[in-house]
């Protein structure tokens, strides 16, 4: 039979969000705080990012260094980390999960659950890229693990689909693995990474950037022999390569959230949450990239800590908030998080995304036609795949009995 156990707080996922939540809770004396991590080691995605770009200005770290720091903090605070253990599904009701690991299946009952299951890149299939099914097709996530954790051979000539921060990370990893990067390919009119990074790739490493261009077909039987690309003006070309990396286009790892019947946000595809990480299922909180694929690790960690504070209130008997007023976006905006307004849970701010470049953008926040807030983002152009932020002080003006709040660019 399946063993049943009780803990005070069960955190699913030992990435930055989960580890920060666990550290915060354990430090505050929330009782038994247990973190489940399905991988062999804690740390989440940063563990696989051998490059810098983590930590703070004053204390820059590599991904693995950052993962270690957060892991040690959680352990020092007294949280229990259980690796190699997967949360599979929910028991009938409440914050109760079924899990499995080398010790066998068990049911873990908690007073609160924090979901911090992260996000992944959409693979070739989900992007509906047609063609053959050859070897040599990667996402950045797989590429980084293959190179940094296993030292595997990748290929000789690679095309990178995407030109955002993570795409440049992929290009760096490819070069470190001895592959030539043939080109970065983006449908957008320019790179969506920091100008210094984009320029270094182009000028220092001679990697061409093909803008207004999409990968339309994979070629080759057995091993990839090339990708067909199409420019917006209709021209097509074949780039000979034995490797292609599909980067970015993140989607939350929301299986557990959906299995638990949590209300989902159609824009982010993560669970809908208010400003303090409450989901629609009492006792269940969510934090990190599960809520908004994808933000920097520091954002995920801050949200984890914030969720930790909300969990403490919950354990102390605070009532579960009503669903609240939904926050939605209009095209060309893609999503916004958090995406519920409840009176008691004002977030530090919102993050959102645009689907197209927006020169001199202005955001309008309205409820039932009433303007709650108007904000100029800038200076310059807001790019797709880059973080846009919106403060939350307008929450005071939201009518809790009113309709949805809509954020738009006009």
């Amino acid at each position: 039979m399946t063993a049943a156990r009780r803990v005070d707080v069960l955190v699913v996922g030992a990435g930055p969000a989960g580890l920060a939540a666990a550290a915060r809770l354990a430090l505050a004396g929330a009782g038994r705080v247990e973190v489940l991590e399905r991988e062999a080691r804690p740390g989440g995605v940063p563990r696989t990012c051998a490059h810098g770009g983590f930590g703070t200005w004053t204390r820059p770290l590599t991904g693995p260094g950052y993962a270690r720091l957060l892991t040690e903090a959680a352990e020092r605070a007294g949280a229990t980390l259980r690796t190699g253990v997967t949360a599979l599904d929910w028991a009938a009701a409440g914050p109760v999960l079924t899990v499995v690991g080398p010790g066998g299946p068990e049911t873990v009952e908690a007073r609160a659950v924090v979901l911090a299951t992260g996000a992944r890149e959409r693979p070739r299939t989900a992007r509906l890229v047609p063609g053959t099914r050859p070897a040599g097709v990667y996402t950045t996530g797989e590429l980084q693990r293959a190179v940094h954790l296993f030292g595997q051979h990748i290929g000789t000539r690679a095309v990178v689909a995407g030109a955002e921060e993570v795409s440049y990370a992929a290009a760096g990893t490819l070069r470190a693995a001895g592959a030539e990067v043939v080109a970065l390919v983006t449908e957008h009119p320019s790179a969506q990474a920091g100008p210094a990074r984009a320029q270094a790739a182009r000028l220092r490493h001679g990697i061409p950037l093909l803008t207004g261009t999409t990968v339309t077909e994979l070629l080759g039987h057995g091993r990839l022999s090339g990708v067909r690309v199409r420019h917006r003006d209709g021209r097509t070309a074949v780039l000979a390569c034995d490797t292609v990396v599909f980067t970015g286009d993140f989607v939350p790892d929301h299986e557990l959230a959906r299995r638990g019947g949590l209300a989902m946000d159609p824009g982010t595809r993560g669970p809908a949450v208010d400003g303090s990480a409450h989901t629609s299922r009492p006792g269940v909180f969510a934090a990190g990239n599960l809520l908004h694929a994808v933000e920097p690790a520091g954002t995920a960690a801050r949200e984890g800590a914030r969720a930790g504070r909300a969990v403490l209130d919950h354990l102390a008997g605070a009532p579960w908030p009503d669903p609240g007023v939904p926050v939605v976006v209009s095209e060309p905006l893609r999503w916004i998080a958090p995406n519920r307004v409840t009176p008691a849970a004002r977030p530090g701010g919102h993050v959102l995304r645009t689907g197209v470049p927006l020169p001199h953008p202005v955001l309008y926040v309205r409820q039932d036609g009433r303007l709650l807030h108007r904000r100029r983002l800038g200076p310059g152009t807001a790019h797709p795949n880059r973080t846009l932020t919106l403060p939350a002080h307008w929450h005071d003006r939201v009518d809790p009995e009113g309709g949805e709040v809509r954020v738009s660019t006009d």
Partner: protein
Amino acid sequence: MTVTADGPLPSTPYDVAVVGAGVVGCAVARELARHPRLRIALVEAQDDVGQGTSKANTAILHTGFDATRGTLEARLVREGYQRLSAYAAETGIPVERVGALLVAWDEEQLAALPGLAAKAGRNGCHDTVLLGPGELYAREPHLGPGALGALHVPGESILCPWTTTLAYATQAVRAGTDLHLDTPVRAVERTADGHRLTTGRGILHARHLVNAAGLHADTLDRALGHEDFTVTPRRGQLLVYDKLARPLVRHILLPVPTALGKGVLVAPTVYGNVLLGPTAEDLHDRRATETTADGLAALRDQGRRILPALLDEEVTAVYAGLRAATEHEDYRITAHPGQAYVTVGGIRSTGLTASLAIAAHVTGLLAGTGLDPGPVRELEPVAMPNLGEAFPRPHQRPDLIAADPEYGTLVCHCERVSRGEIRDALAGPVPPRTLEGLRRRTRARAGRCQGFYCGAAVRDLFERGRSAAEPKGDRA
């Protein structure tokens, strides 16, 4: 037990060589292997069994309710359905009897349903039922609006095509069949006492020959002087949706065939995904297993009508298979007694279902070409690893994990594949030679992340497992 993929081929003649290790060739080899006196070679051009059309289909175990009466195909599909249902239960091949609904979307299709029910009755399916829209939507609440009714065919089932082919091959190899992979047959000559096959790995002699070369069966047939048929590959592209889509559909949703052609189907898979497809495109290139933008767009348009919510889910696989269609509306299974040769051609869109019946039929025909099969015995049963969600997977079995914690250590998280299962597959009698082969045996890397999390770890286990299994000094 012999599986080879390099080095010289044995020089002593085989009693029977079966060319092509698809589901049909493997079934034939397995059937022949019941005769312990026969020396059998199963000869395959690619690096694994079931790498041709047998890996890329819609994985339905057909009742044959809509088959054309009087054809060989109709008979073998019906018989194959019975045989494979029983065999699957015995070997652990996952099968789910979900039933099919032929959904009528217009008056013409609705009017065709009673005729289809009558045809089903003539084909031995007496349990079909006509459903009105009320009952149809009660059974399939996520069906798109506008359906007028349906014909329910309860016997239609879904199964795992990879496990099926592998089970046949495993049993044949265990019973003494030599499986030669990476061995394309390039030429055939008649000799005094049989056939001399020129392969990519040298010469192989066999007294009797079975041509189960799928899309290339006509080429091999011509090499032996026959102009009976020409294969025109009919491509079928398919989309596989995320497991989170599985609750959207309960039955196989089939189109009603009309004068305007056949639409596409939406069907659950035994792995807990949902399939949308296939297209039907007549081509000439027998390697054209690529998907196309137009094909996928057309499928999505049709899928949106049938099951609108499906389109919101993530796609976890896109693939295409080629049906070995010919100018004939039936299988082309022919004995050539003077040549000690049997052609198994034109096994178009039902070969998975019919495989065991085809095998029995072909063995009978071989006897007519002078083969004395000798005594027959029952084969050692095989227990195949379960890849189906309707039956307990290893990670769901406390007993198994208690005995071996490797079954509780998940490597591929989306598909919940444990280290124990990967280890077992690598140590199996017909081990995978590529990551794709490992995927078909375990589902590792087949899920929604397509390797984002597990790809490198699975590759590592694969490469270690392979080098451990490799005989030392065999490779340069």
